[in-house]
């Protein structure tokens, strides 16, 4: 990070009468706020539920900042391997893109092949679920960076 970017941002604020600016990119997350802004509170949304499926794994923002998430599109049981004796589809370090099968989710007796959404390209930085785990819509499966 360099201070120059920040200076550019403050100039942008000044010139455009902005009271708040928030930028998030692959390598940087910035928030600037002027006195007059209503002070927004960024608290993590509390998750009340005790879901059947594990709650979406907490994403440690610091370490994996900028990573993109591969989420489950459907409730079901997640498998990291095509069959119990096989190797996992992917692991930390595996390069992936939207064509790569990263895991299976069994739902309605069907094994659905899960691939990253279009635009997600990089290497697996973290596997967020364990083999055979129940997942729901939105459960974070992998972090790709």
């Amino acid at each position: 990070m360099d201070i120059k970017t920040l200076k550019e941002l403050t100039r942008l604020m000044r010139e455009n009468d902005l009271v708040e600016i928030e930028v998030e990119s692959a390598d940087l997350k910035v928030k600037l706020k002027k006195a007059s802004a209503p002070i927004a509170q960024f608290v993590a949304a509390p998750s009340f539920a005790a879901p059947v499926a594990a709650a979406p794994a907490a994403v440690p923002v610091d370490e994996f900042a900028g990573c993109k998430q591969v989420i489950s599109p459907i409730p079901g049981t997640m498998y990291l391997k095509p069959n119990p004796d096989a190797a996992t589809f992917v692991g930390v370090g595996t390069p992936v893109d939207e064509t790569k099968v990263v895991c299976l989710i069994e739902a309605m007796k069907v094994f659905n092949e899960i691939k990253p959404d279009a635009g997600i390209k990089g290497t697996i930085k973290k596997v967020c679920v364990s083999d055979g785990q129940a997942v729901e819509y939105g459960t974070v499966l992998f972090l790709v960076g």
Partner: protein
Amino acid sequence: MFKRILIANRGEIAMRIIRTCRRIGVETVVVHSTADKESLAVRMADAAICIGPGPAKQSYLNINNIIAAAELADVDAIHPGYGFLSENSHFAQVVRDCKIEFIGPTSQSMDALGNKAKAKALAIEAGVPTVPGSPGPVKSAEEAIAVAHKIGYPVMIKATAGGGGRGMRVAHNDASLVSGLLQAQREAEAAFGNGECIIEALIKRARHIEIQIIGDMHGNVVSLGERDCSTQRRHQKLVEESPSPVITPATRASMSADAVKLAKAAGYFNAGTVEFIYDLDRKAYYFLEMNTRIQVEHPVTEMVTGYDLIKHQIHVAAGEPLHFKQEDVKFQGHAIEVRINAEDFEKGFAPCPGKISMYVSPSGKGVRVDSHCYAGYTIPPNYDSMIAKLIVHGENRTEALRFLDQALSEYIIEGIKTTIPFHQRLIRDVRFVNNEVTTKWVDEVFMRE
């Protein structure tokens, strides 16, 4: 009996179903969208499974994901609530094909009764009075004109696949009938994928009166009396009450018998509502349509009969015979429900989603609030604007209205606009108090003053 059921719904009806399940010892799994992850239902249910993002199409209407959740949670049955997939016969069939019970009627009954033209034909066959008009969809403008001349103008043009006021049109003469029919057919084709329309006599001074029935899989069907839902705005019910203050005991008995007759003719089981239009001038009722699910206003019937409708829905879905017979059903007092919506009634009932900053619900003997809201809750913009159903039960209508007035004045909801002020004005209006209201009164008189 079921060990565990899945609730494929949200908001107050999800809460309502959870409540009964807790009372009868059935576990609950609620499915929800990401927009509802902080909802009370998610918190209250024994388990919650996220099935998709905010838009209903990708979550509450996403059959695949709901079934996947039901299998994952290993439930015995699915309660669809009202709205969403509750009247989707395909969904009911998929659920049953997966060896999960659908808490509702068969797909066949839903199909037979969900289509207005088919339902009307069934009613005619069963000897239930229907609004004079075409026996089925009209094939041509000429046929429509012939029907109109027979029953007399003005007439209604109705899309058979429509509902809740959508796909309806009035014609006062041949010219407006021909053009109206064309437009209605085109609109219905676009909106529902089905352009069929029927022609019916227009009833000028109408009350909306419906009969709550419940049936089991053993051929028993019982009527739980009527609800009068005549106070409507743009065909949306605002106030529901039981008993109806405008019909005689003889009419009530006859309507109940007809509703049961129709349900039996359709091989119907589980809870359902047979809607009638009551013509104040002719003092006659006509079958309108049947809703093959639990309804928003079911608590009104619960208050006057003492029966928990959700409980009996679950019992009959599990194959049990109805726990009571027609002669066991007794009515006590008068119940009224008003729907409190997050809407600004002074701005044409514009929805006002947002965060509730303060919330104090009313209390007292005979006051019941069915709601999923609380201080701190944000009403998402994705779904309907209902905040709560306020139901009161008094010895008679006068007492119930007094209770309602007290409860409305005690209800504190801050942070968003609500329809509480509208209801306060409404229930103090002498014409409402004196039962001079028709289904068009709010639109044509009350809102214009």
